[in-house]
């Protein structure tokens, strides 16, 4: 599939999970394709980075479900901040562990899972719909009943995949990309390179086979598809470019790097920017 074909299967109003973590291995080529479409009114579920910053700045988010939004080396995501401070979307703010167990619940077809997190904090105040559950055993402890974070679609980016959707991560951290796929009705995996199935385990151990094809709807080959976030070991974060993203007003950034068509045009614009600086 192409990134644009993936986006053609998405609809406004959907609940969309986005893999990666902060400014790490985000499916940015898919996010950029989404920005080229008119899909909006989304509920976005993400351990947020520039994916959230861009979609929020572009007004595509109706509700965000997250524990944080950060660019890691730049702690506060400026475009997310600006959108949040002007009240551009609704927020479901939960703890990192609650978020994870919400994905587990969805992947396990459970309505909720108990979590020892949230109680006593204002996560309960700002999410009045959250319920608690008391252990039926002797301990009698009360937990948050974290509702399943079921997704209409998930977007993730990994290092390698085969055409059938077996996805492989080659960096140190899988993040939660397999869970996003399992929690979604349809999951789309972009990768640096599509390879033959036999290639996947030629040099890498089988534990790197993170995503199973039965959880995947479509595969997109997208070299530099996580840019400007990191995709270890293929490339690190493009810190200079991330800084540019964080410093420019959104309209200016989008006008220069996202306006002229496809992913190739984006890569050419980024190359030109780097050349100007050198």
């Amino acid at each position: 599939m192409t990134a644009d074909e993936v986006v053609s299967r998405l609809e406004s109003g959907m609940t969309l999970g986005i893999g990666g973590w902060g400014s790490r291995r985000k499916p940015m080529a898919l996010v950029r394709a989404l920005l080229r479409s008119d899909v909006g009114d989304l509920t976005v579920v993400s351990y947020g980075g520039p994916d959230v910053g861009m979609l929020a700045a572009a007004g595509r988010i109706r509700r965000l479900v997250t524990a944080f939004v950060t660019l890691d080396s730049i702690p506060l995501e400026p475009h997310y901040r600006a959108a949040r401070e002007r009240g551009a979307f609704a927020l479901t703010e939960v703890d990192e562990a609650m978020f994870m167990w919400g994905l587990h619940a969805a992947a396990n077809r459970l309505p909720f899972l108990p979590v020892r997190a949230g109680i006593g904090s204002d996560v309960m105040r700002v999410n009045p719909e959250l319920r608690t559950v008391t252990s039926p055993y002797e301990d009698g402890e009360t937990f948050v009943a974290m509702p399943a974070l079921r997704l209409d679609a998930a977007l993730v980016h990994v290092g390698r995949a085969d055409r059938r959707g077996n996805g492989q991560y080659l960096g140190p951290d899988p993040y939660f990309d397999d869970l996003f796929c399992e929690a979604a009705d349809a999951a789309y995996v972009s990768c640096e390179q599509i390879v033959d199935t036999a290639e996947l385990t030629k040099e890498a151990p089988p534990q790197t086979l993170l995503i199973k094809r039965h959880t995947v709807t479509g595969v997109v080959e997208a070299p530099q598809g996580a840019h400007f976030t990191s995709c270890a070991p293929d490339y690190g974060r493009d810190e200079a470019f991330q800084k540019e993203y964080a410093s420019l007003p959104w309209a200016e950034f989008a006008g220069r790097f996202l306006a002229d068509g496809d992913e190739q045009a984006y890569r050419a614009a980024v190359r030109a920017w780097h050349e100007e600086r050198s």
Partner: protein
Amino acid sequence: MTEVNGHRVTPVTGESPSPPTRAEYCVIACAEAWRGAGEILASPMGLIPSIGARLARRTFAPDLLLTDGEAMLVDADGTVEGWLPYRRHLALAAGGCRHVMMGASQLDRYGNQNISCIGDWQRPTRQLLGVRGAPVNTLNHPTSYWIPRHSRRVFVERVDMVCGVGHDHADGARYHHLARVVTNLAVLDFATPDRSLRLASLHPGVTVEEVREATGFALTVPDAVPYTREPTAEELGLIREVIDPADARAREVPD
């Protein structure tokens, strides 16, 4: 440790290195959070807590686990000894084998911490990071805080969003334990009848008045406040020559 009105004790060494800087007292105060912690993960957030954790690991808390800031558990010299991606990190926190030292944009007298936003949550005047893992951390394992700039902006009467759970919100949660708050001025703890913050020690050169002035609520101050302990010559050597030879600590807390 010495009394406020007593003389400052300097480390007894043969070569007499330059006296400890404020940043180095902060490192020592952070390191002390992990004394006697055993075989648990030290999760320092911020530069000086990181130096403190590595110092503790190299001296009086040799069993500590440390990460490389990404997905690896590493020895003091950086040798990889284990794998701890985020999913395992969250599981480890739930298992309780961790003592985190988090930052705080706001902290109140009962140890409620805010890193989410300033102002009304519905429409904040300043959006910050978000709650991150503060709710799960504070309900599952020991938590300390590091405040590089002790001020009324941080130490407030009431936080705008409770992320890390304080004593008045914990309601007897079974694994809730707030250990200490280290700032650029002092060490605070919760050893009071209502478990509100108390001045535990002053970094040498700081007065009680300075700490009071920089705190936005009435801080409990004991009759005699000790100074934060002196680093040993070995500790100073490790900080200056091995762990932070570039003196990055001085940029976080200038002298």
